[in-house]
């Protein structure tokens, strides 16, 4: 179905709500005296968007706005995930000491704009839309990262992010221009058709352009070697934004990456496996990138003493794990990747939340601030963080384990034994640094100069929900799996 502009609006509800919300917030910012309410309103808007997504009918899919966007279950999955990330980020922002010092109206407006942009990234059916959305996400991310404008680290991070992002996206559009030149179209489906049509495929040119495009997309998911901005930005940004970037932006990146590399560049065989373009061996390239990503992420994390930075490197490694599902070129793998991204959302959001809670109380983000946390009144955040970190490690009874289980299942099934071994070794290495905060919280005794940790009701609630979700979904993950299975479907209509 190729829907025109008006017909498309039926499937554009969440985005419309967000767009309207942005404007509403900007206006309300001028009108309202108590700016703190703005956060609640933004939360409401995000929730409404999520609800609208939840009510989307699962149809075979459609093109929206003259093949600018694609509406399918895959997009629904990522939009839901991004909306959830936005909700968590807003919720955290409401309870964050850092954010309270900023301009509330603008902050939430940009946050919603960023969410909106990520939605578009997940639905792009077109190189132009993909570039526009990606750049939109980037721009809002720069702003959000530098939002603490009196904070050196924040601005510094924003500048690095911006320069890095500018180069990455510049590289990407150069690559895209070649794809455009080879296929004569910006439309993913047409590109797919053009490239898979028998004939002389310009293998080298396609490969070069894919590498260049990968710079832009890989930079969004923070895969090695396009990852180097992530630690600085994660450390410099306000924690809710870090969380949002870590889970939302990364999810959007995965959405775009998957949509571009699978339906646009590959063809699905009857057995549920994907066939890459003949001669263009990006799967090997990505396999390599995947292994390097998780290894470097984990190794670098070993050295960190700042929790945000540690989680930043960890999230690089986690992206590497998720890529395992990507590189096996099967629907199994994609499902595992979707599942893992969901799991990653739950556990990483939880981990960052605890970091924020501790930072709120102590003003510190280094691991030493966690010394003896369990024994100085912070047993609940300590236990919660432990659950999240165990989940990130992939220990059973947590959703992280199930996520890894499906990933490894897909890898083993696809006979990527080297990848399996590398993944396994990485799991072991990662244990070491994930255990460090746990060790500090439980095994060390407090020095006495660390502040007390208090948790307000709302943070408590969110932490509880995330921790429970980590465990409950680790025991009963059927709904998530069903959701991921349902979302494996890409809409590709006729050319």
């Amino acid at each position, binding site marked *: 179905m190729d829907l025109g502009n008006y017909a498309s609006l039926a499937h554009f509800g969440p985005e419309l709500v967000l767009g309207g919300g942005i404007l509403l917030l900007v206006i309300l910012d001028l009108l309202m005296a108590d700016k703190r309410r703005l956060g609640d309103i933004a939360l409401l808007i995000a929730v409404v968007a999520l609800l609208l997504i939840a009510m989307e009918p699962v149809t075979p899919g459609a093109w929206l706005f003259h093949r600018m966007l694609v509406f399918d279950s895959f997009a629904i999955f990522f939009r839901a995930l991004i909306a959830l990330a936005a909700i968590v980020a807003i919720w955290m922002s409401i309870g964050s000491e850092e954010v309270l010092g900023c301009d509330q109206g603008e902050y939430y407006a940009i946050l919603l704009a960023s969410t909106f942009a990520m939605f578009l990234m997940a639905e792009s059916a077109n190189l*132009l839309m993909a*570039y*526009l959305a990606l750049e939109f996400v980037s*721009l809002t991310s720069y702003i959000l990262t530098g939002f603490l404008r009196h904070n*050196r680290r924040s601005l510094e991070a924003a500048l690095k992010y911006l320069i890095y992002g*500018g180069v990455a996206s510049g590289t990407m*559009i*150069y690559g895209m221009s070649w794809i455009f030149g080879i296929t004569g179209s910006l439309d993913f489906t047409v590109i797919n058709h053009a490239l898979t049509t028998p004939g002389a495929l310009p293998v080298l040119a396609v490969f070069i352009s894919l590498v260049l495009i990968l710079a832009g997309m890989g930079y969004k998911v923070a895969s090695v070697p396009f990852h180097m901005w992530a*630690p600085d930005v994660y450390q*410099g940004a306000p924690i809710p934004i870090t969380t949002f970037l870590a889970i939302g932006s990364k999810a959007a990146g995965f959405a775009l990456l998957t949509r571009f590399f699978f339906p646009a560049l590959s063809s699905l065989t009857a057995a549920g496996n994907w066939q890459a373009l003949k001669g263009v061996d990006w799967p090997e390239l990505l396999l390599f990138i995947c292994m390097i990503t998780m290894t470097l992420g984990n190794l670098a994390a070993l050295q960190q003493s700042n929790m945000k930075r540690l989680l930043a490197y960890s999230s690089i490694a986690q992206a590497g794990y998720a890529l395992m599902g990507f590189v096996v070129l099967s629907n199994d793998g994609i499902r595992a990747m979707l599942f893992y991204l969901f799991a990653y959302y739950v556990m990483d959001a939880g981990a960052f939340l605890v970091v924020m809670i501790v930072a709120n109380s102590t003003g510190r983000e280094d691991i030493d601030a966690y010394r003896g946390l369990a024994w100085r009144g912070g047993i609940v955040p300590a236990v919660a963080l432990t659950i999240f970190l165990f989940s990130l490690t992939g220990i059973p009874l947590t959703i992280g384990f199930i996520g890894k289980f499906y990933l490894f299942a897909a890898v083993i099934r696809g006979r990527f034994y080297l990848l399996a071994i590398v993944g396994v070794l990485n799991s072991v290495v990662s244990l070491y640094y994930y255990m460090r905060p746990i060790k500090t919280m439980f095994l060390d005794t407090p020095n006495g100069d660390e502040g007390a940790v208090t948790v307000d009701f709302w943070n408590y609630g969110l932490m509880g929900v995330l921790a429970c979700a980590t465990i409950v979904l680790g025991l009963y993950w059927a709904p998530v799996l069903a959701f991921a299975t349902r979302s494996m479907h890409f809409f590709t209509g006729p050319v």
Partner: protein
Amino acid sequence: MSGAVGLDHYLVLSLIIFTLGMFTVLTRRNAIGILMGVELILNSANINYLAFAYYGGARYDGQIFAIFVIMLAAAEAVIGLAVVLAIYQNFRTIDVGATENLSG
């Protein structure tokens, strides 16, 4: 390369600008300098889009893409300069080497 100017000419021109942009990006320590390199890269990409649009028939697709690139470059420049200004207020320098607070 003889005779009439063809697609390849534009592509090579674009490639040269692209590599010069890359070189700028790589070697500059000044944030604004790096952003200038980025602008060169964007322009080289735009040349490609327009060339492909001209020679490939998909006329408006390429041109519109170029317009969006320009537009987004402007937006990025605005934000970039805002950040540079803010940093300048805080650091009194825009040498990227000085922004070394964040380090591994």
